[in-house]
Structure formats: C-alpha cells, structure tokens
C-alpha cells in the first residue's frame, strides 16, 4: 500500500511558469510540471524542520534544496479544472546602451486562471514510504506542508490550499483506464482532448535545468481514456497513471 495526498489548490488568478530554454521573448508553460509541484511542497516541508536552505553547492555544481525531498515522492501529477489561457502584456523597455537611447519591446507571459468559472488545481502526491521511513520527515509533516504551499511557479503565482486529503492506494497494472490527471505521453493511446507539453523530467533533479532531460506530458481536458501497459493508482474515486 502507498500513501497519497490529494491537494486542492486555488490560484490567485496568475500562474507564472517559465518555459525553458529561454530566448529574448519569454514563453510560458500553460500547465504545471511535476518539478514545480515538488518545489511547491518542498518549501513548507523544509520550513517545518527549520531549514532555510534553497541552494546547495557541490564544487561548481549547484542544486535546489527541493532535491532533498524529491525522493519522498514516487510520482506527482495534477488535474486542472478550466483551461488556463496564456497572456502577456507588451512591455516597452527604454535603455541607454553605449550612450544611445534604445527602445525594446518584450513580454512576460503567464497562464491566466481567472474567469467566471472557478478554476481549481488538484495535485496528487504519491509518497515513497521507504524513503519517508529514513527520516527526518513524517507523513504528518508532509500533510502539514501541503497546507502550507504558498506558490506554484515563480513570482506572482501565489496560491492557497483549500483541502488536503490523505489515503492509501495500491499500484496496479492494467491495459486501459480513464483519468483526468496529467500523465507521461509514452507508448500510450489516448481517446479524448488534451494538451501535450514538454516538461523537465523530475528524475533529472531540480534546480539546474540547463542539461536536464525532458519528457512529454499529456494534460487532459476533462476525462480521457488511455490504453497501453499502464501502471495506475486509484486515489479515492479517481485514477492516476504513473510515469514509466
């Protein structure tokens, strides 16, 4: 049996996630990648133990402190109600370069989750109990940390956690399932609507993404049917597909 946490999140309207690599004109991610979900829970989790470290250095390499809690999770995924819309105002930047006034136009796009309907983000964290037993955290700590998530992504992406439910699940193998949660798009057949998005493979680590591997994730719109050699976990009434 594996513990899971189901976390319901309310955005404050804006989710700013930068797509990598960056060019002069930044692009934003529409959907939330697993690394961001781990980063979001890492901050309050480290806070609980009094750790303020956010970067650790190993000679010339530097990593995010979120890596210290990365192994506590077997898989993290997300379901989004309401389709985020990418938007960015055009910004005029006036600079003086080598004595000459110059003008440039740029934009900082982000995903807007704001409208008449109530947008909501549901994240599921599958907990690796073997890693958890090695300490220093308990399941209760992770649950409290989930209530303390403050941001999804960068800058103005403040969130509030509205509900945290914990439960136990079994990981099963099957050929077909229906899910509303994002999954890795690899050797599967999908029936239904959704968006493919390239994201950093969380197994590459968190922090320095310059050489990180990417995986393709499928973010469903509503519920989709997925076929293939699937590893699934039933979390309450819902099903998630684990990455291969």
């Amino acid at each position, binding site marked *: 049996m594996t513990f899971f946490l189901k976390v319901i999140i309310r955005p404050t309207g804006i989710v700013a996630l930068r797509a990598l690599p960056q060019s002069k004109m930044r692009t934003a991610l529409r959907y939330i990648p697993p690394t961001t979900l781990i980063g979001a829970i890492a901050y309050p989790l480290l806070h609980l133990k*009094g750790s303020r*470290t956010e970067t650790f*250095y190993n000679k010339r390499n530097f990593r995010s402190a979120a890596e210290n809690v990365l192994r506590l999770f077997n898989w993290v995924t997300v379901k989004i109600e309401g389709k985020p819309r990418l938007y960015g105002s055009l910004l005029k930047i006036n600079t003086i370069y080598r004595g000459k006034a110059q003008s440039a136009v740029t934009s900082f796009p982000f995903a807007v989750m704001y409208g008449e309907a109530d947008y909501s983000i549901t994240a599921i964290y599958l907990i690796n109990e073997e890693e958890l037993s090695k300490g220093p955290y308990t399941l209760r700590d992770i649950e409290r940390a989930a209530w303390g998530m403050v941001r999804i992504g960068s800058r103005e992406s403040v969130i509030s956690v509205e509900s945290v439910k914990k439960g136990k699940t079994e990981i099963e193998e099957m050929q077909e399932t229906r899910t509303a949660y994002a999954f890795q798009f690899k050797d599967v057949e999908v029936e239904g609507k959704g968006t493919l998005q390239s994201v950093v493979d969380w197994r590459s680590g968190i922090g320095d993404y310059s050489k990180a591997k990417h995986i393709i994730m499928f973010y469903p719109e509503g519920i989709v049917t997925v076929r293939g050699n699937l590893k699934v976990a039933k979390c309450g009434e819902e099903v998630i597909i684990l990455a291969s």
Partner: protein
Amino acid sequence: MFLSVGVRFEANVEALNMVETAGNYTKHRRVPYLVEEDGKLKTVYVPALSGESLAHAYQEHLAREALSIGLPVCDDCRRNEFFKSMNKAHLKKKIDPIPEDPKKIEEAIVKACVIEDVGGFLYAEKPPVRRTSAFQVSYALPVKSAALFATSEPQLHARHAQINASSKKGNVSEQMIYYVETGTALYGFTFNLDLDAIGVSAITSGPILEEDEIKARREVALKALFRMLSSSQFGAKLSRFFPVGGITELVITVTEHPFVVTSPIYNNYIDRTQKRLAVLKEFGEEYFFTVADENKVPEEALKEAIDYLREKGAF
C-alpha cells in the same frame, strides 16, 4: 512565523499600473477574464496591477523604514532602483574584491542591504547566487463577483505650450493631446511575509546577522507593510491619478509555518480562510486571525497582528 494578508480595495479612476504605450495612448495593464456565454467562452479584459508593481512599492517603503532607524540599505536600493546585486558591477559596490565562495557573497549582500535580505536577489555571475524573496505578492485583480463591472476607460488630456509667432518653428504644436487609460474596480490581492527567512542564509540555513538586528529587520518589514497599506502609496501616477476609494476589507493570519489566506478575489475568502485555519489546530499549531471590515479599520487589524508577533518574540 509566517504572515499572510488578503486585501480588498476599491480604486476608482486610477492609473496604478500602465503598460503598452502606443504613441500618445497609455494603456492600463489588463488581464483576460473568461466568461461563458451560450456555451461559448468569451474573453473580457479587465484592469489589473502586477505583483511586481506592488512589490516595488513595498520595497520602497521598506527602504525608507530601514533607513529611518539606521539599518543598512545599499546605494541602488536607496534610490529605489532595485538591481539587487545582479552582476559584478553592482556587487562591487558592496564587496571588493568579490569572493569566490557563494556563502561569502550572500553574507556580504545581506549584511549590506535590508532590501536584498527581505526582497531577495539573483547574482547572475559565476558562481550564481540566489536568494528567494521573503515576501510574495499576487496580482491585484478585480474580485470575481464584480469583475464584469471593472472598467478601463481612456481619459483625454491636453498639454499646452506657450509659443509666440516669432519662435514658432516647424510643426511644433501649441496643444498636444494624450490619453491615459484609467481603471475602476474593486481589487483583491494577497501578500505573504516569511519572517523566519530574514537575516538567515539561504545556503547554510544559519543566521547571518545578530539576533537583535534580525528582530529590527523583521520589525521594519512589518512597518513597511503597514505604511504601504495605510497610506495607499503603491502603484504609478499617484500625483495626478490618486485612486478614489481605499481598503474595504482585509484579512490577516499569522502562523508558525507557511499558510496563505484564500485570495480575496473570491467572495467567501474570509470564511474559507477561517475554516482552513481551524485545520492547523490538528497539527498543534497556534495561529492568529483577524479581519478588518465595517467594525474595524485596516490599521487596527494590522496593529493587532504586529502586537501578536511582538508577543511571540518575533521582534
């Protein structure tokens, strides 16, 4: 200790955050608001203030408060130019020669500037050194129930120049018209402040400063928030477009570990926040909660929160 504040404020005819200047027309910042009509999604653009704009204002107040009690603020931040030790040229003003050890770089910056301690920095050289801001601000967006009543209207203005016939050259105009788009809305935004991060290293997790100075910096961080909200000194064009209105509601929580109030853009945000806070009791965590509404002014609520933090020994 972690402070979270949800603010609702009414702003009529304001030009607090402008973008996209096109010739003589200055647009207000806007965001799309999605509305469903006959089964189809429709986009309505509503005025908004970026978190960056609010964060800039907060840091201006922080610089002023810090200087008023003799705490260090670097030259750039004193001028309200928040470059934040972004490269060697800016860092050299604080420490020269620049050390190679990231811990020493962080220590030098934190010791030299309260703003970079509280507001974070990114030294983008080798080795890169980053410190995440101890405070967070969301966008200020029209509250959802009244978002469709939010407007952004252009206002016509004219600038006059006195030109006599002999000095008139070329096509210099005696009048120049220009437009400023003004927004009117009931806005909501969230502000968080992680007091435990102030004066503490983001690399070693140990304190960089003496306990007394850490407490003094926490106090000015709270005072700056009080000042910013109480004076409505945030956003642009205050000299001629000072918004008509003010704070209508405010909710404040103080918790031992991170916890964020439900965003005030939602109608049930006060009740939701209170119910969610009650869960923290199960974790054996104490908390503080107060609301400013018809019976309590925002300044009273903010003072209660500051008094609670003082009682708890935060400063």
